[in-house]
């Protein structure tokens, strides 16, 4: 890479413009110069990829840099990515390819609509096709392919959480009947110990509400949205087709899911494959029903709330979880300074959930750690979440930032359940 030559100075000794004498240094300016010093090939190679075209639109204004959550713990943002590519970085083999969590805060502020939510999956798909995938992400892909979930847990154990719920859940493949609500449990509520806590709380709340609901049990597979955003589009399509076939076997009048990523997939992506569902996030389903719940106790907790990127920015829902928090008796609620449309990211989206170690080598702290510090700053003693990725991410971050004993992390459904006991 050659050094950029300074532009040649141009100065007219005698110059009168519209009757004004601007001779000498008054008219000094640089000659226009073109950046020939960099090969435009790498940029053109990327923007030729379907889905990645808008990277070329960047005019380096830098608005995204202040919005990008990764930049606040490292050196990253669409503007910086563009510049690196422009000056010769091959993004397809560079760690930067995997740091974006597709949180969409850059797109919110970008005047040129440089769309990283489209660019990143498209570029990653090329890298995946060339078998250039960080090992931990590859493992998540392989697990999803082999077992239908990124955790690598046996499919047959997908509904095991039901046994200890203390409330019934109809497992539709075993007990075939029409239900009002088909609950799409998703992987982390099915398998992760803390997710299972939330799933069980959900079952108990549904029983209190007298909702007629069922789950797909071992037939449910990952909705696969995050794998799609991490570049495995083929895997997404394969599982989506399987899920669509499975869903077609059962009768239900609406669908509810635990996971904003599944919500995003079922609301925005599955329709592109010809399957439309009346889908709600569980906070959207429960918020209007909160008045019917027989509260038993006040929860005198100071809480704050973290917006999931895929519920909030991606799908515009900021109110439902806040409405739930408002109605749970006793909670004192404070917003964090980054919230709602400008909410920070937990780092788990877009494949980040399976790249923690990889990402850790390229940032000064995890996004979840930064967010936990912000939650502590509000004076809250509890961080309330409503995305299955977040409980374990934030609980880890509470430990690693030395805030154990100072901040608890709870899914909002756990609080509802607690106030009913």
């Amino acid at each position, binding site marked *: 890479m050659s050094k950029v030559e300074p532009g040649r100075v141009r100065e007219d000794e005698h110059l009168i413009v519209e009757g004004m004498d601007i001779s000498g240094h008054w008219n000094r300016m640089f000659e226009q110069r073109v950046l020939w010093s960099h090969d435009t090939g790498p940029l053109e190679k990327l923007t030729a990829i379907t889905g990645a075209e808008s990277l070329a639109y960047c005019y380096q204004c830098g608005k995204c840099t202040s919005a990008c959550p990764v930049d606040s713990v490292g050196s990253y943002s669409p503007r910086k990515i563009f510049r690196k590519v422009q000056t010769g970085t091959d993004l397809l083999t560079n760690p930067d390819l995997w740091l974006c969590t597709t949180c969409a805060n850059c797109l919110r502020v970008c005047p040129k609509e440089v769309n990283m939510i489209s660019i990143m999956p498209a570029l990653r798909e090329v890298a995946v096709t060339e078998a250039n995938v960080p*090992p*931990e992400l590859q*493992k998540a892909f392989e697990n999803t392919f082999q077992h239908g979930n990124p955790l690598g847990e046996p499919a047959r154990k997908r509904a095991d959480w039901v046994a200890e719920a203390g409330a019934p859940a109809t497992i539709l493949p075993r007990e075939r009947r029409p239900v009002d609500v088909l609950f799409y449990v998703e992987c982390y509520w099915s398998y992760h110990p803390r997710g299972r806590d939330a799933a069980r709380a959900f079952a108990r709340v549904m029983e209190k509400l007298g909702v007629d609901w069922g789950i797909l049990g071992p037939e449910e597979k990952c909705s696969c949205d995050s794998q799609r955003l991490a570049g495995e589009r083929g895997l997404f399509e394969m599982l989506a087709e399987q899920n669509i076939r499975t869903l077609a076997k059962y009768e239900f009048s609406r669908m509810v899911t635990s996971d904003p990523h599944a919500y995003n997939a079922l609301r925005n992506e599955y329709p592109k494959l010809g399957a439309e569902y009346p889908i709600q996030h569980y906070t959207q389903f429960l918020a209007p029903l909160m008045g019917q719940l027989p509260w038993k106790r006040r929860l005198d907790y100071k809480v704050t709330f973290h917006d999931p990127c895929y519920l909030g920015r991606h799908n515009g829902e900021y109110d439902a979880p806040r409405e739930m928090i408002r109605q749970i008796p006793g909670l004192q609620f404070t917003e964090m300074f980054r919230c709602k449309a400008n909410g920070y990211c937990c780092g788990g989206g877009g494949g980040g959930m399976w790249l923690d*170690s990889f990402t*850790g*080598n390229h940032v000064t702290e995890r996004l979840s750690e930064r967010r936990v510090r912000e939650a502590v700053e509000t004076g809250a003693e509890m961080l309330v979440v409503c995305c299955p990725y977040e409980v374990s991410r934030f609980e880890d971050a509470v430990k690693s930032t030395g805030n154990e004993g100072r901040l608890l992390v709870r899914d909002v459904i756990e609080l509802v359940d607690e106030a009913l006991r």
Partner: protein
Amino acid sequence: MGNVLVYVENSETGVAPIAFELLGAARRLAAGLGGEVEALVAAGATAELAPALGAADVILRMEHPALSPYLPEAHVAALTEAIRSRDPQVVLVGNTSAGIDVAAGAAAATQRPLVAYCTGLAVDGEAVVAHSQVYGGKLVATTRTEGPGVFTVVAGAFPGAEGQSGGKAAEATLAAPATLGSLHTRFIAATAPSGGIDIGRADRLVSVGRGIGGPENLELAQELAAALGAELGASRPVVDSGWLPKARQVGKSGMTVKPKLYVAVGISGAPEHLEGMREAELILAVNSDANAPIFEVAHFGSTCDLFDLLPALTERLQAS
């Protein structure tokens, strides 16, 4: 009356330790069958190898230049020849690298059944009952072999001491088969373990398995090893994935270790791994799967998530 034939694995360093374990097992089987123990030692020169094999009743010496250094094709021919001429009821071969080559090849050539991965062998009437580790050690298969059979025996399953005792055995010479003169396999060179370290000499080892997830997580284990003053070891999948060099591999195709302390992290405990470390003085295993076979040989175990336990333990050890 059935005899037991032991294939004596050997190299330029002498008789392999597994051979004595086999001789010990053979003695018991021969007693049950009312037969004798015959030891086949096939090498370029056998004079220096034979005296160690006194636990046998008969030492069968077969010599040919093609038999040293080890060539699978030559040794299959040698064992096949010995089985044909001596017609033993039981043939014992170590379940080692050479054992895979030799036992299956000879069993096929002599039309005898083969039972692999044996950890227990007993005589029941006329038959041999074997216990074998299958499915990565998660299940044990019991088989019954009526009539002649070939058995490969897992290293460490039988004590070596019984096979090392014994007086002077009778010796017989077996003619090498003619095929050894026209082999299709040639020895080119031997390679010593690379990597500069010798985990076999370490008195403390922290070994990582597939449960560590990826190379980026090795640091957790390295930090624990440093806090313990231990070397880092690995199971085969970790080495095959290129996360750690071959020289750090513990198990059948790696090193056999007997440290004072062996910490197995994220290792499920396939039989091939267990045979390389089961004699460690204190074995501590961390694996989230409570059914992992590693807990069979470990003295202490925990099913804690290694990503939680390792940092906690490292911190404690650094502080103490």
